C-alpha cells in the first residue's frame, strides 16, 4: 500500500501525546512535579499533540463533512480512536482544573491514574484498528504492541524537555532520563519483534529500519543517558530526543504501510 501520511502522523503525534501524559502522570503520582509551569505545559502539550494529530488524521477523508455519522455507528477503528482521544483529553483538562483548584490529593491521584490508563489505552487503540485478517502482516497482536511502544520514546522525551523547561530538578528529571532510556529499548524490541513476524527485516526496507532503530531507539536512549549525567542539559537532550523519536516513529509507521499487503488485490486499486 501507499504510505498514508495523514494516519502516519496522526498515530505518531497522538501516541507521543499519550505517552507524554503517561510520563507526567507517573511523575505527578510520585510527587516529583513541583512547579505549576510543568503541569501547565505538560497538559497543554498533550492536548496540542492529540488535537493536532486528530486534525491531521481528518485530512485523509474525502468527505470529512460527514464525520459526525461516526457517532451513530460505533465500531472499532475511527470511533474508538476518536473516543479515546476525547476521553484522554477530557481527563487531562479535568485533572488540570482539579489541580488548579487545589482538589484533595486523593482526587488528584485518582484523576492521574485514570488519565494514565486512558493514555495507554489510546496508544493501544491507535494500532489495534489496523489488525485485520485481510492483511496478514498486520494481523498480529505485535502490531498494536509496536504502535503502542514505538511512540513511548517521543512521549518520554517530551516529558523530559518539559520538566527541564519547568525548572524541575532531581527526581523529576531523573525519571525522565530513565523513562527515555527504557523507552528506547522498548522501541527497539517491539519494532524488531514486529519486523521478525512480518518478514520485513530483510529486503529493501533497510533505510526505514535504520531510521526506526537509530532515531526511534538508539538516539533517544543515548540522549536520555546523557541527560542523567548532565541534568543541566536535560532540556536540550530532551528536545533533541523528541525530534529523533518522531522521525524514528514516523519511519516505522511508513514501513507498516509498505508491508501491509492484502491477501489478494484483484482490482489493483492502490489505497
Amino acid at each position, binding site marked *: *500500500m501507499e504510505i498514508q501520511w495523514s494516519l502516519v502522523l496522526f498515530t505518531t503525534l497522538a501516541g507521543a501525546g499519550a505517552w507524554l501524559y503517561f510520563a507526567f502522570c507517573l511523575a505527578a503520582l510520585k510527587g516529583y512535579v513541583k512547579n505549576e509551569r510543568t503541569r501547565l505545559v505538560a497538559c497543554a502539550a498533550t492536548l496540542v499533540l492529540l488535537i493536532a494529530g486528530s486534525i491531521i488524521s481528518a485530512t*485523509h*477523508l*474525502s*468527505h*470529512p463533512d*460527514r*464525520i459526525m*455519522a*461516526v457517532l*451513530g*455507528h460505533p*465500531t*472499532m*477503528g*475511527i*470511533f474508538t480512536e476518536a473516543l479515546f482521544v476525547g476521553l484522554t483529553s477530557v481527563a487531562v483538562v479535568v485533572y488540570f482544573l482539579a489541580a488548579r483548584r487545589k482538589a484533595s490529593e486523593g482526587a488528584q491521584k485518582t484523576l492521574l491514574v485514570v488519565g494514565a490508563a486512558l493514555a495507554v489505552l489510546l496508544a493501544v487503540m491507535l494500532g489495534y484498528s*489496523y489488525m*485485520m*485478517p*485481510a*492483511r496478514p502482516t498486520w494481523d498480529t497482536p505485535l502490531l498494536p504492541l509496536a504502535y503502542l511502544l514505538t511512540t513511548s520514546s517521543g512521549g518520554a522525551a517530551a516529558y523530559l524537555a518539559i520538566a527541564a523547561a519547568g525548572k524541575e530538578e532531581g527526581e523529576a528529571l531523573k525519571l525522565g532520563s530513565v523513562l527515555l532510556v527504557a523507552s528506547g529499548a522498548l522501541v527497539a524490541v517491539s519494532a524488531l519483534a514486529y519486523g521478525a513476524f512480518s518478514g520485513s527485516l530483510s529486503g529493501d526496507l533497510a533505510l526505514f529500519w535504520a531510521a526506526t532503530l537509530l532515531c526511534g531507539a538508539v538516539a533517544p536512549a543515548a540522549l536520555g543517558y546523557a541527560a542523567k549525567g548532565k541534568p543541566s542539559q536535560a532540556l536540550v537532550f530532551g528536545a533533541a530526543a523528541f525530534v529523533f523519536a518522531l522521525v524514528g516513529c514516523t519511519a516505522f509507521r511508513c514501513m507498516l504501510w509498505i508491508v*501491509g499487503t*492484502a*491477501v*489478494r*488485490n*484483484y*482490482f*489493483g*486499486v492502490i*489505497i
Partner: protein
Amino acid sequence: MPFMTRNAIVVDLDRCIGCFSCEVACKQENNIALGEYWNKVVIEGPFGTFPDIEQYWLPTMCQQCENAFCVNVCPTGASYRDPETNIVLVDKEKCIGCKYCMMACPYGVRGWNYEEKVVEKCTLCRQRTSIGEQPVCVAGCPGEARFYGDLDDPASAPARALAAADPASIHQLPDKGNRPATQYILSEKIATWRSGD
C-alpha cells in the same frame, strides 16, 4: 441472526471462455469510469511447462461475505447489509472516504470512485434484481457460466449449478473468517484451482 436469503453469484469456470463480457457489461450497466471496476476478469496463468500448461479466467467481484469485514469496520454504516436481500451494499451518501473497508477486504474488490470520492462495489445489479431481472453480468454471459440467486434455495440457478458439480470442483477465494458466499466451479480437467489459500 439467520439470514432469510443468501444471494450470490456462482461462476462455472469450466464454461467461462474469458471473453470479458461480464466486465464490459458491468461497466456499461453501472456507468463505471475508465480504470475503475466492480467486476474484473483476472487471468490466472499460464502455469506449467509447455506443452503441459493450463490457464483459467477468474471473474472477481464482491464475494458477498457472510461475515463481511467491510461492514464490520465501516465507521459510519455506509457499508451495510441490506435487510431484505442480504446483499452487502454501500450507501455513498454516508461514505466519508476513509477507505477502511478497502483495507479490510481480503480480495481488493472494492472500487474507488475518483469523481465522487467514495467507495463503490458490485451491488449484484440491485436496480435489475429488485425488479426480478438478473444481474447484467449473468444475463450477458455468452457461455452461460454465471448464475445468480439464493444459494439456500435448492431451486435457484446457482444452487442447481453447485448441486450438479463435482464437490471437488467447487472452490472459493481464501477464507480468512469472512466466509465468502461466491463460489467457483473449476474441474481438474480444465485447470488446477490456484486462487485459494
